[in-house]
């Protein structure tokens, strides 16, 4: 890969230096805020020149609890992963927030980046993370009356028979 050369961690390092990070991780800078400071940190990155939120998704680490995390970050079942992009600095930063299973909630960052509207809805729909403060926390890909969140690891593939809405049930 020709783009494997790590970019200088200028902006990411200057913001919130107390935030734990993994060094030399492929191309992007990683940051691991606590759930309470997550939104403030995203806003700080936006003010530091990260104009766009490129991607937001969630991961269910139920069957893979031992992933590499920096010291001081306790692994939880869920993780919300936000990829921010700075056009002016040509730099990416990835923010990973731990979200506990007992309370799968995290602040919505739709006020900071309106473009995460659909992405947060998708994460809610498929993984079941509730983004508090999102004005329209509804399912987006699955039918409204679907039960469960398909991308969770304890949601068995093929366990639920495919059922089209309003169609008569299986014999």
């Amino acid at each position, binding site marked *: *890969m*020709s*783009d*494997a050369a790590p970019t200088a961690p200028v902006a990411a390092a200057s913001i919130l230096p107390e935030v734990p990070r993994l060094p030399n991780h*492929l*191309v*992007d800078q990683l940051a691991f805020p606590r759930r309470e400071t997550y939104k403030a940190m995203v806003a700080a990155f936006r003010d530091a020149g990260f*104009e*766009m*939120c*490129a*991607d937001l*998704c969630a*991961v*269910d680490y139920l*069957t*893979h609890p031992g*992933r*590499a995390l920096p010291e001081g970050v306790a692994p939880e079942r869920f993780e919300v*992963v936000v*990829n921010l*992009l700075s*056009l002016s600095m*040509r730099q*990416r930063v*990835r923010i990973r927030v731990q979200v506990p299973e007992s309370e799968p909630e995290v602040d919505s960052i*739709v*006020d900071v*980046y*309106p*473009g*995460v*509207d*659909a*992405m947060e809805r*998708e994460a809610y729909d*498929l993984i079941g993370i509730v983004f508090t403060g*999102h*004005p*329209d926390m*509804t*399912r*987006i*890909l*699955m*039918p*409204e*009356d679907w039960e469960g969140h*398909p*991308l969770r690891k304890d949601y068995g*593939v093929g366990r639920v028979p495919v059922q089209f809405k309003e169609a008569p049930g299986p014999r």
Partner: protein
Amino acid sequence: MSEHDHHDGGDERDDQDAVELSPERFAELEAEVAERHEVEERQLVAETSEGAQELAPRRTTSPGGLRQEVGAVLRLPEGGYVDPSDIDIEERDDQTMIINMGPQHPSTHGVLRLMLELDGETVLRTKPVIGYLHTGMEKQGEELTYVQGATNVTRMDYLSPLNNELVFSLATEALIGIELPPRAVWIRMLMSELSRVASHLMWMATNGMDLGSTSMMIYGFREREMVLSFFEKTTGLRMNTNFIRPGGVAADLPDGWEDDVDILCETILARSFEYDELLTGQPIFRERTEAVGSLSAEEALALSATGPILRSTGVPWDLRRTMPYLAYDTIEFDVIVGTYGDNFDRYSVRLNEIRESIRIIRQIVEMMPPGDYRVQDRKVTPPPRARIDESMEALIHHFKIFTEGFRVPEGEVYVAIESPRGELGCYIVSDGTSKPYRMHIRAPSFVNLQTLPLLLRGGLMADAVAVISSVDPVMGEVDR
């Protein structure tokens, strides 16, 4: 049917009502009517709706949701908020109408459903309702090995399948940490650019059709077919080729590929000027595209819009240039930008990107290095077919790769490329097995679709078709 017939049913009350109606009684009746309307509405909605995913009447929409839908969040200065009751205060539910467009509509490019709130011919609010083509590809990606994974992702954006394979392969290779032989890189670049040409041609065709230019549709499909025949010759399939795989590409280019590509470039470049004549200079086309569906650069950035939509607003952001992958940093090309971010700018950005892609392809033909078309690492790519007959080891490697796949070291990576529709990203989490623990695709169409409410707002219903078309959503990618 009058209200009191139903609710009171008495003859003597009928006469009374006709003569005089006390204010209390009037208010009571009004309340009854409103209640009945609501019941009817609920029943109607229950028959047809997806419930909360739909565009709700104003009175039942939360202030935050309303701000979102009218795009007021974006037009405000940073951090500021308006009083929610200020938004379109003059609009009442009984003056507007919410209608459905799609999912079965010829100009929604698949199964996109838009709920539009109309005031006469003017669009006030829009809400895209998606998910009709949701096939759980991200979930399926967790069940397939990395070898099989490219077959899965290629079906997402079915108009430029090779770019999907490319981003998936790049992400996998970043996790494994292998370096590709130069020829593999350049073949990938060739296929990616041809794919962009085919995709933009397809867009020209459908956009032409949406704006009433049937000839453009025929021309676009005709030229796209040329590219697809080259794909068929190279990969064996017109679409969903599974040609770009982790570790390289599936096969070397066929003999005489330079001539085929030369003819392709020459024909399509010459014909791109015919499109100019057919569309760019045509007054009807211009009137339907110029100043329709405008977007500012700030709005595009705030909504995470990428690709031609972002570039049409004047932001020179093209990942091939700004964050080069493959060997794009060794190639000369221009990043096409627009000014006003309207339909016409998006059209001209795409038309000129076809020409730029052809410029890139010509350089690739000249500079194509010799050598291997895939990495010679038996743990990642299968041995050549001939070796299997001679070598027991080769047979074992072959068997292992196609039954178990290869193991990928633990880690997570986000890789993004410039697809014809914008930033196509792939986020893979690996737990050290031969299957991705989590595979997430950042689909440009999915994100770009969020610009629709803003683009359509205040415009005419008739322009909706033109605007949807110019956003260029591919529903296979939106819903995944």
